[in-house]
């Protein structure tokens, strides 16, 4: 009796099952900007498909919803300008997050710092109401906003630098605290006597940021935001401070050995981050709302975190991502009107996009390689 012949196997089977043979993932030594960008685009594509699925499950026409989204965001000149209005605070909070995250400092407090900035600007406008010329007043209002945002962020950064307190938790807590501080100020000391709502008096016309056109809400805050993005890009890429920030993010131990004062660096980075978020708050206050209230750009701080991460922490990418998310917010209102799909869809899409971008970014770091078949 001869031995039975070995069982026949399909090539596919052997490819998958034979140890040491077939296909496997191999980590690339260098990913490159092209692949990283492609990964983000693919991830956004998947998110759009998933959003379509969600719309279908919710019982509305997918194409109808997408068309409504596009029309609402870019369909007319007015809607396109309104998209930029929506993007304005997001650029600032996105930059604030990106600066801190570059240094691996997890500033989740953009929301609180944003409101601190708005409150700071309002306080200065109240204090220096008679200061003229107007440009000087603007300088002080924005300074007040930047300072307020930076100070609020500094609570977390000083605690981190001195006591190594986890900044994720302190910044999250400070968001809540800021909300209650502001609602206390708006319920009591700062409340306008002429209104039923928790808000201040309407601000003087002289404090209004100019608008680009007479028929849209697009104000100079957008230009300030884009300029800030360029400035942040320059700081990160071309200055010693930017070098230290990136160094701290890439390798904190090496930064310390190199002689960088990590504590001072942490406080500096958080102060810049908080100041940028605070300026964003001032922009919304002086450009759109003209009175301090609790719902100027709700959630801008959190959306800024998503934007920073989706943009892979690139300051100019933040601008692009913020406009895209601004379009999403703006378009979703139209979708709600047309299809009845709640505008809360935005948050789901934001979350999904980030999850897919994170996964795609890792996937881009690997390649599938054919391994040589070795028997025995």
């Amino acid at each position, binding site marked *: 009796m001869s031995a039975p012949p070995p069982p026949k196997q399909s090539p596919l089977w052997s490819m998958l099952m034979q140890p040491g043979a077939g296909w496997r993932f191999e980590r690339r030594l260098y990913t490159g900007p092209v692949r990283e960008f492609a990964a983000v685009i693919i991830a956004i594509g998947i998110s759009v498909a998933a959003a379509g699925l969600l719309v279908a499950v919710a019982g509305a026409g997918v194409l109808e919803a997408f068309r409504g989204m596009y029309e609402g965001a870019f369909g007319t000149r007015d809607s396109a300008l309104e998209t930029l209005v929506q993007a304005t605070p997001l650029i600032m909070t996105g930059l604030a997050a990106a600066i801190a995250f570059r240094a691996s400092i997890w500033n989740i407090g953009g929301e609180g710092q944003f409101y601190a900035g708005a409150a700071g600007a309002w306080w200065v406008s109240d204090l220096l109401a008679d200061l003229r010329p107007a440009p000087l007043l603007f300088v002080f209002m924005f300074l007040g906003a930047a300072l307020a945002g930076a100070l609020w962020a500094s609570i977390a950064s000083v605690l981190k630098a001195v006591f190594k307190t986890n900044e994720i938790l302190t910044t999250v807590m400070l968001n809540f605290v800021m909300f209650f*501080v502001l609602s206390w100020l708006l319920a009591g000391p700062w409340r306008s006597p002429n209104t039923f709502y928790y808000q201040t008096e309407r601000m003087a016309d002289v404090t209004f940021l100019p608008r680009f056109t007479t028929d849209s809400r697009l104000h100079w805050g957008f230009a300030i935001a884009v300029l800030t993005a360029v400035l942040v890009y320059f700081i990160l890429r071309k200055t010693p401070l930017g070098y230290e920030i990136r160094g701290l993010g890439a390798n904190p131990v090496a930064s310390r050995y190199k002689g960088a004062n990590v504590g001072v660096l942490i406080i500096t980075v958080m102060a810049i981050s908080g100041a940028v978020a605070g300026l964003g708050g001032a922009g919304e206050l002086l450009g759109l709302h003209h009175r301090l209230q609790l719902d100027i750009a709700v959630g801008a701080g959190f959306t800024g975190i998503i934007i920073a*991460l989706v943009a892979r922490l690139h300051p100019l990418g933040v601008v692009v991502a913020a406009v895209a998310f601004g379009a999403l917010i703006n378009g979703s209102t139209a979708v709600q009107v047309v299809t009845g799909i*709640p505008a809360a869809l935005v*948050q789901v899409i934001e*979350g999904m996009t980030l999850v897919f971008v*994170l996964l795609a970014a890792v996937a881009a770091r690997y390649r599938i390689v054919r391994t040589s078949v070795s028997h025995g």
Partner: protein
Amino acid sequence: MGEILTHLLTPAVIIGILAGAVRIATPLLLAALGEMVSENSGILNLSIEGTMTLGAFAGFMAMSWYENLWMGLLMAVVSGMLFSLIMALMTVTVKVNQVVAGLALNILGIGFAFFWFRSSFQDRSSLDVPTVPTFDTADIPGLSRIPVVGEVLFSQHWLTYFAFLMVPMVWILLNKTRYGLELRSIGHNPEACDMRGINIVPRQYAAVVFGGAMAGLGGVFLSLASTGMFFPDIAAGRGWIALAIVIFGNWRASWILWGSLFFGLIDALQLSLQAKGLSLPFFGDDYQVFLALPFVFTIVALVLNRSRSRSPLSLAIPYHRGER
């Protein structure tokens, strides 16, 4: 001030506040214990807030569909487990930065719950909040008759008893069982565990999913025991406070219990004063100050108790086999 003291020194009020503290501590305790197990395996799950919101929502929806509270409880646990499975996939398998993954899932979880909620109840005005019946408190026969102690400890919800029971259970799991000790050693030194032949991946998955189930339970306590409602910010920072409790509780089950009770006490105190309509010194009727207290205390507690001796050494550091 005098009024407040007289109010607070009334025996019935004290008992009410203490019982309230135990009740309010429940979701914090559940979420924090689950998170501690997850962190002990080396996975920092920052998405507790989102998981709690999702659990609260899933319980609420299941309740409004099946009109069965236990079904609501089950759905909350299942949703918490499924959601944290995504977390485990992202962090254990794909090895995404754990902080970033947690932040992403928070936004996704809250957004998803909010979206589904709005889709289900969109024809209602925002003032017409849908409500469902809630769990009744369950008196433990005999024990609930003990004066003071009975009212404080033994006239609570089933979930509260379960949460308190989980304190020794989790302690035994992590300190007295082989599985738990191995889990903790994974959190400290995954490479050594890998060499020892301990299967890391399934254990980390199990730990994260357990944490998700507990957070889901904590969430459903809010919707089906405390309020009978759902709203997007129902978790109101409790997930984050639970994370802080794990840290300043130095990853010890017993300290986590005291930490949760402490926050329960602050909240119960505040609710009692507010219900009585007493004015605060200096701040008057502005209760925002009191509402901010838990968050201020969280920061203070993180600063005051800096003992991190039980912190898993490889917390939030992804393990790549064959790389250093």
